[in-house]
């Protein structure tokens, strides 16, 4: 137990240092950072502007007002940005497997997945977090949602859970690269599919909702948590939804570990 605690302490120390170093390395090229942030700002602001405009209308689609939809969009954007902050490096796993670059993560006395995670950070996500939180805050106000203490507590817990759902799905898919040498298209498909998480699932036929709750569980990212935040359900079971993220991480990490045993480390 003491050994495991020391191991975790060391992993955290390495993680914080690697993250700090990564930010510093990005700042070596401030021009690139400014451009990347500007791009992210334009994208986030334009998306938010459309919603702000739409909020002035009072239309209801499948039981969701546009303001409620904006809450879902803001919530999902923040969850996605949180995932990006920590798990951005997992997107490089297929390339590492193909090129054999994974080798040098495997010969260190540290968890290779942790080393991959903290070797790369995305520096422009803070804009997405700020815009997402602003969109969510404004939309919650406009939609007239009652922000009880439970809801205020639920939001951060659900955001972490949602970020882990994203992380689990992307880790599972990128880990398939140990079996499929060309899984880039699958990663891209998941990447594209996650935009569906921003839409209320009641828009879709029941079988699509079932698919988004099981096969590609994007419904757990924003839809189910927002049902509770927006007062569309009062079931105490909603508190179990944030557990979907950690639970989904278990098979994803198992798949990653299985994949490591199949790693063939091409070339010299």
């Amino acid at each position, binding site marked *: 137990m003491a050994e495991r605690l020391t191991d975790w302490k060391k992993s955290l120390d390495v993680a914080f240092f690697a993250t700090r170093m990564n930010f510093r390395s990005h700042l070596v090229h401030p021009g690139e950072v400014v451009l990347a942030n500007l791009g992210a700002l334009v994208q986030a602001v334009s998306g938010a502007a459309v919603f702000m405009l739409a909020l002035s209308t009072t239309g209801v689609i499948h039981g969701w007002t546009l303001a409620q939809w904006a809450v879902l969009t803001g919530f999902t954007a923040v969850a996605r940005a949180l995932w990006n902050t920590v798990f951005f490096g997992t997107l490089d796993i297929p390339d590492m497997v193909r090129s054999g670059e994974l080798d040098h993560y*495997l010969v260190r006395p540290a968890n290779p997945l942790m080393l991959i995670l903290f070797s790369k950070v995305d520096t422009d996500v803070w804009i997405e977090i700020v815009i997402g939180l602003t969109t969510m805050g404004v939309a919650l106000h406009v939609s007239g949602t009652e922000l009880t203490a439970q809801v205020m507590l639920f939001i951060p817990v659900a955001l972490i859970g949602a970020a882990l759902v994203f992380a689990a799905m992307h880790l599972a898919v990128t880990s398939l690269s140990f079996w499929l040498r060309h899984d880039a298209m699958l990663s891209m498909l998941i990447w594209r599919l996650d935009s569906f998480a921003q839409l209320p699932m009641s828009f879709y036929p029941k079988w699509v909702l079932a698919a988004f709750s099981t096969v590609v569980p994007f419904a757990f990212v924003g839809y189910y948590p927002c049902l509770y935040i927006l007062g569309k359900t009062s079931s105490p079971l909603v508190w179990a939804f944030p557990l979907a993220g950690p639970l989904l991480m278990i098979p994803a990490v198992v798949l990653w570990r299985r994949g490591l045993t199949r790693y063939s480390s091409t070339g010299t």
Partner: protein
Amino acid sequence: MRVHLDAVQRSYHVRRRPETGSRLTRLVRRERSEVEALRGIDLRIEPGESVGYIGLNGAGKSTTMKLVSGILAPTAGRVTVDGRDPHRERRALSADLGYLAAQRASLWWDLPVKDSYELIRRVYGIEPALFRRRREELVARLDIGKHLNTPVRELSLGNRTRAELVGTLLHAPRLLLLDEPTIGLDIFAREAICGLLKDIRETSAPTIVMASHDLRDVEAVCDRIVMIDAGRLVHDGKIAELRGLGGGTRRLVVHHAEGHVLPSAPGLVPVRTAARTVTTFEYAQGDLPPEILSALFSDPLVDDVQLEAPSLEQLIKTLYRKAG
């Protein structure tokens, strides 16, 4: 550390586009086949030994390195490092392992060299004062002090390899696996690296396995040579023993005036060459009559006389020809 390989085999599955069939078939279908990288390797490396692991491209050198480091698991047979399975106990064993594959960066590409070293310090849990002392020694030895603040990606190949070697040695590994550490380097970088490795071998005696194409480097650092060809071991012995395998054949090379007729002697076999002013003979070691040498040295039409032992490269070529 003690490294044992017992009947180790390792194969890879590859998928190739079929050579026959319709255009659509060739576009969509992939044929699966198996490539045998290692075909039953038995090897014993004792603690403190330094072994040059040589072989042609694709012979299985890197695969062996990856099996010993625990990156790969064998398809059949057994690999142990100090009696432990390196694939199953990779993390535990990696604390004592230094692995350098020169064609791949192991330092963090975007970070300045010194930050990469600090990250290594934290990953290996090296005590700060000890880390500083080792870093200063190694950096001074390989003369990369002025590059410590440069991001790794901006270094030349020579400086990057030096920086990588420092990173590999910072935690004082007891097993050093070096895969082509001097490939593509100039003479100064190679000398610096080989000199450092030789010193480390003499002072702290880690087990060293060095895969290389360059036999000069192997000779400078190692005292034992293991040769591998198409996944099979073809030679394993001391460098001195390898020299003995040359059959004792030596060469006598004489530079002389054009058209000059040289004296002959029994056992001295002329070797056909195109040069008119150079004549080469082969003879068995110990069979060169001393009177021939005195005659050559006193001959005014002879400019130079050279006695040559076969180079390590020639001996290895001979071994490969015998093997296959």
